[in-house]
């Protein structure tokens, strides 16, 4: 199937007795953005490392760009781009020197190389910084450089490990515009992120927890599955209400927002009555209560909450320090 860029079939990686990635399976077509969500330690990095050909799977198979992760890791490296979470280009080299170095490593030479460097500089908007030491660039520009660098050899598949972690909203938007541009050109993007609103931008998302994929699908589908089940309650005192409501029958989860609670409920009508009843008894003052469309975060917190990231994460975005 030439239209499948990345596929995994029961891909598993064990470290001793610990199973970091447990029989995960998925298919990612060319030209799409695949969002890979999960807490730190859920198995995201291990999955990426296996797919990039730098870590052999314990069992299962995976194909990247038509090459097998088990037997053809070196071929995989020639057809993928990789943007790491931490800036890992040479900070004591200039933008130009970094691109020249990596371009050569990817087998580009002479005019081909200089033409291609010009292209990626223009695409990423780094033209003006070509002679700047890359260590002196701001976070957003560093990340753009990393992306520009990863596409020097025109890979059809790019892995991005939390490409926007720690960036300000404007830089994040700029990065995503760049990613869309790449996807439009037919490139397949494998992106891990902590940010829920970024997950919404993906064509397909998968939630991973404890090495297992809990849910996979298009963001809109995932939300629709949940849409009749979110109850927004504006009330005070908020934390006390949260504790009380979470114990009620039919409430599967409570997420605290600024002045409201989002109740993830199985039966909206019945729970609404129970909430009002409990509030009256416990002295919680409810100012409004209404059903709202689910967000991806609700989908997230609906999953086995014990092992998924804390429900609050993703509102302002967790500042990842992994």
């Amino acid at each position, binding site marked *: 199937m030439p239209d499948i860029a990345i596929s995994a079939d029961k891909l598993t990686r064990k470290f001793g007795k610990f199973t970091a990635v447990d029989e995960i399976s998925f298919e990612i077509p060319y030209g799409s953005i695949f969002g890979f969500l999960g807490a730190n330690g859920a198995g995201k990095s291990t999955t990426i490392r296996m797919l990039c050909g730098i*870590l052999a799977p314990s069992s299962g198979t995976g194909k990247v760009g038509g090459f097998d992760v088990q037997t053809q890791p070196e071929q995989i490296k020639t057809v993928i781009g990789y943007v*790491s979470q*931490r800036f*890992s280009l*040479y900070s*004591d080299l200039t933008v130009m020197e970094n691109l020249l*170095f990596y371009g*050569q490593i990817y087998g580009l030479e002479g005019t081909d190389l200089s033409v291609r460097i010009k292209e990626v500089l223009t695409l990423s908007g780094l033209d003006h910084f070509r002679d700047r030491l890359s260590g002196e660039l701001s976070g957003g520009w560093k990340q753009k450089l990393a992306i520009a660098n990863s596409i020097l050899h025109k890979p059809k598949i790019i*892995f991005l490990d939390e490409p926007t972690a720690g960036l300000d909203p404007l830089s994040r938007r700029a990065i995503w515009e760049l990613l869309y541009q790449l996807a439009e050109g037919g490139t397949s993007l494998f992106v891990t992120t902590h940010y829920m609103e970024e997950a919404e931008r993906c064509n397909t998302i998968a939630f991973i927890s404890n090495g297992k994929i809990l849910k996979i699908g298009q963001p809109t589908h995932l939300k629709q599955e949940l849409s009749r089940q979110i109850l927004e309650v504006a009330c005070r005192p908020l934390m006390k209400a949260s504790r009380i409501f979470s114990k009620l029958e039919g409430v599967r989860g409570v997420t605290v927002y600024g002045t409201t609670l989002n109740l993830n409920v199985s039966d909206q009508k019945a729970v609404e009555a129970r909430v009002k009843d409990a509030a009256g008894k416990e002295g919680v003052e409810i100012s409004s209560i209404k059903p709202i469309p689910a967000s991806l975060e609700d989908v997230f917190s609906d999953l086995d909450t014990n092992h998924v990231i804390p429900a609050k994460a993703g509102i302002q975005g967790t500042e990842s320090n992994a």
Partner: protein
Amino acid sequence: MRNIKAVAYKEFIQVSRDRRTLMLLILMPIMQVMIYGYGINTDVKHLPTYVYDQDRTYLSRRLVDSFTQSDYFTVRTQAKSLAEVYSALDKGLAQSALIIPPNFTGDLLKKKGAQVQMIIDGTDSTPATVALNSSQAIINAFMQHEGLIPIQVLPIDFRPRLWYNPDLKSTYFMLPGLIALVLQFLVPMITATAIVREKERGNIEQLLVTPIKPYELILGKIIPYIAIGVVIATSIITTMHYLFVVPIHGSIVTLFFMTLIYLVVCLGIGLWASTVADNQQQASQLVMFLAMPSILLSGFIFPRESMPIWVKDISYLIPMTYFLQIVRGIILKGLGFFDLIGQVWPLLLMAVLVIVFSIRRFSKRMA
């Protein structure tokens, strides 16, 4: 090949931007030559000496003169009492003392057998031995010169000669050895930190997902440091030869060729250290740890001949042991490649082993 060139080129740029390392690389070798050349001088000359001449005659003064003229002793003070002499020795003001009793000349003339006492500070064995031997020689010469004993015709005409370093200058011995020491210290250090730095800063993470092969990365990273090693060696040899006038009797080409082999060993050690250490600090500590026994056991300062057998056996495992014999052999004795074959092959073997082993260890797949 292209990849190796690319890595080497970027490594050169990085080194040239790293001011601190550059200063270290330029200054340290020259500083070491200065310290060993000027400071650590084991030549025993001008030993501070107190003289307590109670005879005060023409002959006793002649005796004192013959001590002063020898260059080994310098008279600091004409002491006025034994107590003064003892106290000077205690305080270290004097390292030797010459005591001539009151009836020195009288006894000599009466052929009764005069006495002269020499006290030497034996704390440090090296100057003490030199003082002991030379004082003996001075007295013998004095007696012959003054006609106090007849000039004998000995059955064996024994004529010892000092070859290679007739003046027994310690710079002749130390400075060529310094090439070995500085390279053994600096080269593994910069190599190890350069590689560990990539690990520490996460650069390796990016390189791992590129098609570059481990050996290309390693060779590319090593080449600039071979060049730097050659520059270091050149700067030491130049200072040694022109500032301290140590003659180079052998071939410069052979010397540099041997230095290259030794450099490969040093780089290999650095490479190995980089595969063990997680950060630059650990890497440099590891290199220091390895350098210490090399300095002490290789014969750089202490003669290996006087070491216990088992220590000497250990010293055969140290690359510097062989390279010291090579540099001293070429510089002081003018030996050629084939004279040194016994030292060259162990060094070559070590070079091959350490490089192969390190490249293997530097495996690309992280498990």
